């Protein structure tokens, strides 16, 4: 691991050959990344491709959820994460996997990576707040800082309050979503909670798999705008990697589009194109109206510091509050 004060790329991968054995069919499917794949700081990357071409498999390797099956074939696999003092640290993931440094991987996942998977997958025993706070608590963030960050995210993702209705359609009054168990949430709320949880601990790399499949277009745009603001804003040190089938979303929100496709006649899926893209989304720095929570206008978070800063006190409540301006 080397200290790097100003990294251009947060993740670099070249020469991946990931084999997947399907016990039911007895076949092996291979996912290949032959061209250099680099994820720059403050960028959003879309993984596009037809179903079954290996997008999720690639995501799990990039997100350190699975070890590469042929580590020795990988030419380059690096990850850079910020230290609390402004410096960066480079992790040679090829070496980490080769030496089976399981705890190192767990720590990277816990502190620097965020995930929002297809169906959310929240913890059923916890409330919305507790679910969002889970990554923070796993990183031993103190109670106060945790509570403030959760409030911030509830507001950002429009989860603060909502109207509840009885069976006959009459209003029951406002419902405090944060204190609800997750089994009472609607599909959209559920997915937004999952997104809020994924960014709660300010990950360096955020991986999302079809994050807006349960949201309508408007909410999907809002949610992705939030994610982009948080991960790719000028003050951010992170990046966003997103699997989507929606070309429009990719061109609207992503700086890089990676296209994957199955090789004809072979059980292989590979990266076929990595192309830069100019997102059409409005500049993230401008205040934007949160449609799901009209009372709140959200600014991109000013200080996207690594997780240590939450506990170290480098971010005062005022600074955190400055990230959000109430209308």
């Amino acid at each position, binding site marked *: 691991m080397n200290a790097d004060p100003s990294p251009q790329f947060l993740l670099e991968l070249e020469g991946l050959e990931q084999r997947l054995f399907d016990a039911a069919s007895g076949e092996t499917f291979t996912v290949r990344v032959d061209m250099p794949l680099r994820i720059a700081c403050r960028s959003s990357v879309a993984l596009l491709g037809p179903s079954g071409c290996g997008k999720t498999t690639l995501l799990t390797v990039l997100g350190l959820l*699975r070890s590469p099956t042929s580590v020795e074939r990988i030419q380059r696999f690096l990850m850079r994460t910020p230290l609390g003092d402004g410096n960066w640290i480079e992790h040679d993931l090829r070496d980490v996997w080769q030496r089976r440094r399981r705890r190192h991987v*767990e720590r990277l*996942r816990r502190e620097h990576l965020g*995930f929002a*998977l297809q*169906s959310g997958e929240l913890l059923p025993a*916890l409330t919305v707040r507790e679910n969002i706070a889970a990554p923070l*608590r796993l990183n031993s963030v103190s109670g106060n800082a945790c509570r403030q960050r959760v409030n911030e995210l509830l507001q950002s993702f429009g989860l603060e309050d909502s109207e509840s209705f009885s069976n006959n359609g009459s209003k029951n009054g406002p419902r405090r979503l944060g204190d609800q168990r997750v089994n009472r949430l609607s599909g959209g709320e559920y997915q937004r909670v999952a997104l809020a949880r994924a960014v709660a601990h300010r990950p360096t790399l955020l991986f999302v798999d079809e994050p807006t499949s349960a949201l309508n277009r408007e909410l999907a745009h809002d949610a992705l705008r939030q994610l982009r603001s948080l991960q790719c804003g000028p003050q951010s040190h992170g990046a966003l990697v997103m699997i989507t089938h929606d070309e429009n979303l990719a061109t609207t929100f992503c700086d890089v589009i990676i296209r994957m496709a199955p090789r004809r006649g072979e059980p292989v899926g590979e990266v076929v194109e990595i192309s830069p893209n100019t997102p059409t989304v409005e500049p993230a720095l401008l205040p934007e109206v949160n449609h799901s929570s009209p009372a709140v206008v959200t600014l991109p978070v000013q200080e996207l510091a690594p997780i240590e800063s939450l506990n170290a006190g480098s971010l005062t409540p005022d600074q955190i509050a400055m990230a959000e301006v109430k209308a």
Partner: protein
Amino acid sequence: MIGRWWYYFGLGCRDLIRLWSTTQHHVIIVAGICLPIMMLLGLKRGHVETLRQDLITSPTGRQITFWSARKGELLDRNGIERLTSELPTVDVIIPETQRIAGLRTLVDGELREVEAATLYATRPGDPLLLQLGLQAPERGMRGIIIGEGVAQRLSARVGQSVEVILTRGRGDLAESAKVDLNVVGIMPTEELAAAIAYVDLDLLDQFDAYVRGFRVPEFGWASAKSPAPDAYSSYLIFCEPGNDLTEGDRRFLADRGFQLSNRTASPPEPLSRLLIENFAEKLILYEARTERSELDPRARLRLAPSELSEATEADDVILPWNRSQSASVSGEQWQMVGLSLPRRTWLREYFINADLAFDYEADPFQGRATSKGPMSVQWPLNDALKVNLSIEPVKQQESDASQTSSSVNSDSKTDASEANAKSNSTATVESEETAIVVVPANLLAWVSSYSAGLVEYDADIRLFVPKLESAIYDRARLYARTIDEVPTVVRALAERQFAVMSETGRITEIHRQDESLQLLVLVVGLGVFLFGVVTVFSVLMDSTDRKRATIGILRVMGMSRAGIFASILLRATAIGAAAALLSLLCGWGLSQALAWPPRDFSWLQWKPVVAVQLHEMDLSIVATGAMLCCGFGAIPPAWRASRLDPFDAIVEGRFR
């Protein structure tokens, strides 16, 4: 790190509480395993305790009665003290001594009396009385616990005074003593006719001393007017040559432990000076003694000489003999010789004066001398005690004696004269220095015993009386601290050669039943425990499979394998604790129901009353067992869960 683990713990707790339907399912399964073991342990303990209770409530439960039976140690005060300190786990030892006494009260001017009540010994902390809710009188306290029947007849209440009347001697010699004792308790008795009472052992020993004729200075009671027995170091057997001891006589004496020695040539001093000159020609003198009679004052002989003489075939005369004592009387050295003979006997003729020796009925405090008196002197036995003696003179009748002797045995006269010439000349020399005073044999015996510290002189009645010795008890009752310790104490007493009577048989039987039931519970418990481990294993395996998605999310978020493992283990242990609590509550309820006697409900008469005792130890065993059972059962599922691939777990969990 600690914060993270604390969070894992919190997650586990929330999981337990908020997903209660799953938790309760697990808790009920484990409680279903724990409850039968708990009830089994409770039933076992209840059954054994019922058996033990019979013994505990019975006054003889912890009691061991033991006696020396001629083999064990002497049961005197010192012996009791020694046994109390040396035997294991002894609560108290109380000698089983008793004394008959009269009890009397004066109520409203009317005299009420129980002529013969049996007083038993007790000690502070006597479990027999404690069982009845009574405290035994303190040591030295003049208190008495009377039986219910005695209390009724005397109209006595606690706090009142009762007069105890002790009687000793018979006929004209009968005398009595009285002492007032305070009633400290009234004990219930099965029969009102039973006249019993309890007094402290010290007090009862003093009563006993009085009745046996001893002086009791604490109460100012004098000795009885019966002298101490006279005891002798040997017997002198005089025979005439033609009428010597037969073989049968010698065998008779030998059978009784006597060693016979011929002392004709060297009679015990100063006997030669008191016999006629040539007695050796006309008499044969034997000395009969045992091995210890001369050396040990306690082993001195107490046979009546006449009884011994009658038992022998020879026409012998037997004298009880103690070594003569020197005394300094009025500035002179006197030699005190104890001589008592039958009033009419041929032997008197062989003494220098036939009246020199006393007869057996003579007043003991007198003396005779050939050259003294009549006078009254004081014989100093020590600095404190001087015995008054009246000395009477007797004349030497050497010629008469010689004649008598010669008439009895004239053939040996010349030889005897020559043989005694030397000894006579010695006696003459000695007589110039030391006067011989003959006293009754019993006086010299008492003086010898007094010198040995065996008797004492009671100046009030002018008698040597037996010295009070520590009471020796026939038997004693001992109380072990618990009935479980009774067999140990019994073994210890048996090793000391005591004869023992106790409830050891029943206690051993209870222990045997306890051990059998313990084994049964152990085997059943172990089986159920293993069954529980397997059940918990399969239940948690299924539960973990259902939680794959959750486990996957936690792993994706960076929760370590150890964290997953520990949280599942912790959850299982908490289920074990909850199950233990549930089974405890159910067990308590069930035990109450089983122990409840349905007296007021005739339709429930069929219900047996079963004693179930839920002991803390059993409860802790079951609780620990439940947690261990869950802990062990959770190890494989926890291990498997910690090894799950995070992404696969989520994907697979999603479709379960």
